[in-house]
């Protein structure tokens, strides 16, 4: 069984600390990295991919440092960058053939794989389109297809669901679910609903620190008895926002329904709620007052 291990990774850009002492062990399964913009997700993925060097620390694949593994490590990974890059005038089919060639797959085997993955990501009919003419979601799927060509043991997707409409997002989820057998899949997102029913582990990254790494239920359990819903008057909102971490705000008739996070009952009329993944995200990344 494959194992990816991060040992106390630090990354600084000049004086700015982007990653702060991150240590983790990954076994086959789906890991999702949740973090606000600039929290260091892409940086961490690039370090795992050996695209950039950590300031301190090292990444090990099956016990070996990835820097020494070189080609054999690269052969085991698949990567979908955050903004899928491509040569603008290349056609989908050619693009996949080219990437497959970079991955060292011989032509006859490659043709079959490309056709297979084109069908899997539902792009077979568009295979002779230029990539620049595709929609954002379609480009994203081209990215996934190229990453899967070498049947990677470690699949890394950087914000694969950004820019997808809900229908495509659902299709993406079932695709990932299909792929997740016997593979380590790491993906980053800042969309909480992506996690629902898909991820085995949630990793919460905040300002370069790993705040949580656990199964979604356990992470949610930690939030239990901290999520409250309360109906207030509009003019009370300012006061509430100053006092508590506030999540979703909805209008309900003349009043406002606020979800807020606090370790004890904030107001007499507050009602305790079951935490959802959205609460999880807002709990960690909302800008409000923390208590």
């Amino acid at each position, binding site marked *: 069984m494959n194992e990816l291990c991060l040992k106390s990774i630090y990354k600084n850009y000049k004086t700015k600390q982007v990653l702060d002492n991150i240590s983790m062990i990954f076994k086959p399964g789906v890991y999702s990295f949740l973090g606000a913009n600039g929290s260091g997700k892409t940086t961490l993925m690039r370090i795992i991919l050996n*695209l950039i060097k950590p300031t301190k620390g090292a990444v090990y694949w099956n016990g070996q440092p990835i820097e020494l593994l*070189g080609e054999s490590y690269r052969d085991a990974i698949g990567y979908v960058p955050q903004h899928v890059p491509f040569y603008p005038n290349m056609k989908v089919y050619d693009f996949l053939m080219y990437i497959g060639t970079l991955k060292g797959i011989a032509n006859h085997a490659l043709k079959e794989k490309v056709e297979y993955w084109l069908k899997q990501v539902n792009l077979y009919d568009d295979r002779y389109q230029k990539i620049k003419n595709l929609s954002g979601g379609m480009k994203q799927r081209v990215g996934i297809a190229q990453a899967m060509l*070498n049947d990677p043991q470690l699949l890394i997707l950087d914000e694969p669901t950004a820019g997808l409409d809900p229908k495509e997002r659902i299709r993406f989820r079932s695709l990932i679910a299909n792929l997740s057998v016997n593979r380590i899949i790491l993906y980053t997102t800042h969309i909480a609903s992506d996690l629902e029913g898909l991820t085995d582990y949630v990793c919460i990254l905040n300002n370069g620190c790993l705040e949580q790494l656990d199964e979604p239920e356990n992470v949610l359990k930690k939030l239990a008895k901290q999520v409250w819903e309360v109906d207030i008057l509009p003019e009370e909102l300012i006061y509430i926002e100053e006092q508590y971490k506030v999540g979703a705000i909805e209008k309900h008739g003349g009043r406002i329904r606020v979800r807020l996070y606090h370790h004890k009952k904030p107001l007499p009329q507050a009602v305790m709620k079951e935490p959802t993944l959205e609460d999880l995200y807002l709990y960690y990344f909302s800008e409000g007052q923390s208590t």
Partner: protein
Amino acid sequence: MKQLIWWEWKLLWQQKLIYIMLVAILSLLWISKTYFNMSIEELNAFEEIQNPITEKDIQEAREILATKEFEIGPEVNVFYRIDEAQTLMDKQSTIINQLKARPQTSALEKEITMREQVNTMYIEKTEYPIFLSEFLGGEGLIAIGILLIVGLYNLFARDQQTGMIQYTLTSKFGRCKLVQAKLVVTLLYTMVIYIGTVIFSVIFNIYRTGSHVNYWMYIAEGFNSPIQFHSSLSMSPYTLTLFEFLLIQLLFLLLGSICFSIICLSISSVVKASFISFLFSMAIFFLPFLIVNLLNLLAERGWIAKLFIYTIPYIMQTKRLFEAFYYLQISNKVILAPFIALGLLLVIIISSIVFLKIYNKKWRYI
């Protein structure tokens, strides 16, 4: 690996700028082309000369030139040419005498021996070989330079620019294999451009010099004439025929092209923006011409100007290496400019390849 080379080859030729430049160059040539004209009688007059020419021929020619000065008949050109042969010989002996008057050094001795062997008493219609040589060192050279730059400046830089590099660095073949593939593709592309330009030059100049009736029959001639008839080489100390000189020129053009294309590739791999890579390559190729012309303008023709004959575009042009006795002295050994240039090209080629390999091994995304 073959598959990767094939892909890189295809991607290289998909750059539209190559075709735009090609069309631009061809149309410029077409607009600015000049013909060489000579009447059939003149041509026949050349046929009657017995090579090598003798003192008697010269005497005769000079007398005729003196008497029939204003009567421009078909043979006058021939007599001028015969007269020129003597003038060239005289020039050489004048230089030899000047050299002998100076304190002797091993370089001086060598130059004197070389100059004593020069013999210009051989006359043919040299138009075609000289046209060809000038074209290869002029329009042809610039066309090669531009096409190489346009084809190669973006080879690595565009991976940077588009972010495709992220795939390269995370896929099995990685940067090293890609560098090898791009190097092979660069060499192939250079060969195509070089061979294409040479073939085009040969044919285009037949067309230019042969535009007049029947002249193309005489095109095979003139290759045996001494290089001193080449206007830029009249003072050359080298005993070479135009044919030998053309071969040397073709060799330098080839090696220079290879050298320059590997430099373009190296720049492209170091620089992260396509535009900067383009500028650097342009500078390496065209700046020497510019600087030398500026120096000439300033009448500053000292050792700095001499140094510039060892820049890549001037080496590719070749004629500057042969125009005078340029040399480098290492202890007792006198090394002539063409050999220095040859050594320089080989050193640059080898060190650029080594640089490409080593530099890209440690290559990171950021």
